[in-house]
């Protein structure tokens, strides 16, 4: 694995190579090298399986981190590729030509975060949110509770507790006030 990551470091300027646990390594790569890197991993290094694709919203840094999770069955290794893209309408290269199922993930990412993958099939079709008329809901500037109350209403008599506080009161009354 080290051998591979070292090579990736040289060839693709991969950075932040971290072994999270045995068999799971993550690394970060620049956006313009990501597709080549993934293709290389799939075709040459035996990472034939795309576990999933997802996205993390770092609103503070103004970036989305896309995560491509690849798996090598022979070595039982999982490799997470992190790619940073800008939050504001930046596009990403589609990988549906590498794994046909990727278009589903990309469609979902388009719906939930507003990231566009030019060329990805059926990208603009509704996935879960039929007729969605707000900003993409997984972006952190979207206030779900406010939206929920406005649109779905609030049943009178319902009380919401903060789970941590509520547990302190109901489950562990003796330890009330313990700051640790």
């Amino acid at each position, binding site marked *: 694995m080290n051998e591979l990551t070292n090579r990736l470091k040289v060839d693709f300027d991969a950075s932040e190579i971290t072994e999270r646990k045995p068999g799971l390594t993550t690394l970060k790569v620049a956006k313009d090298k990501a597709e080549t890197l993934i293709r290389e991993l799939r075709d040459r290094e035996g990472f034939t399986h795309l576990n999933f694709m997802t996205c993390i919203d770092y609103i503070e840094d103004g970036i989305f981190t896309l995560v491509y999770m690849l798996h090598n069955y022979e070595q039982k290794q999982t490799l997470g590729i992190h790619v940073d893209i800008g939050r504001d309408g930046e596009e990403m290269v589609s990988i549906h030509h590498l794994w046909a199922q990727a278009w589903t993930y990309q469609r979902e990412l388009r719906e939930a975060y507003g990231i566009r993958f030019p060329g990805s099939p059926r990208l603009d079709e*509704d996935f*879960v*949110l*039929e*007729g*969605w*008329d*707000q900003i993409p*809901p997984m972006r952190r500037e*979207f206030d*779900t*509770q406010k*939206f*929920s*109350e406005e*649109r*779905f*209403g*609030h*049943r009178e*008599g*319902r009380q*919401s507790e903060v789970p941590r506080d509520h547990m302190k009161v109901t489950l562990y009354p003796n330890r009330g006030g313990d700051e640790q």
Partner: protein
Amino acid sequence: MIKSLSTEDTLENSGLSAEEQQLFCNARPKAYEPYPIKAVEDFANWARANSLWILAFGTGCGAIELRPLMTARFDANRFGVAGRPTPRQSSVFVIGGYASVKTLKRIIRSYEQMQGPKFVICLGICPVNGGMYFDSYNTINQFDLYLPVDLYITGCMPRPEVLVAGIMELQKKIKQGRCDGANRYVENFDWYKANQKKVIKNWDMPDYNW
């Protein structure tokens, strides 16, 4: 008897293109009166109560609680409960917990395709007040805004025993002639429709799914 429509009975079906409007029926639903003879109505209600056909449409996590109902342990067949794969023939709709907006649209369509008298059981807390999904962007909080509910079984998740108890409760209610959800829906049709359309933004069905 088969009736032809007069214009005031019709719905706009504005969610449909002009081309599609001719493909869907645009009649308003109509309420039905009880049979004029009380004995007949009581007998009919007894029959209805003892032949509850549940629509085989698992709408949320609670759908998993419906399966054991038919097994040897609970054997809901004893109470005349059976599953039915088509809404045309079903009389009971069990809402299995949370309902996302996308599912709600299908629930409404299926409910409207069931023939009256028809009954709705809400399973779990989510249809009541949103439950743990109270702040979700995609899950409704109060199911009775959208469809008339005859019986709530709360809990997260209620076990099959409770479901059996709920069914027996429903039977009791039916026999008493108090399950008139279908008529309530018809009578407050515009209110229900407005609520439904408030959350379902891509309304591409007819206003009433005959």
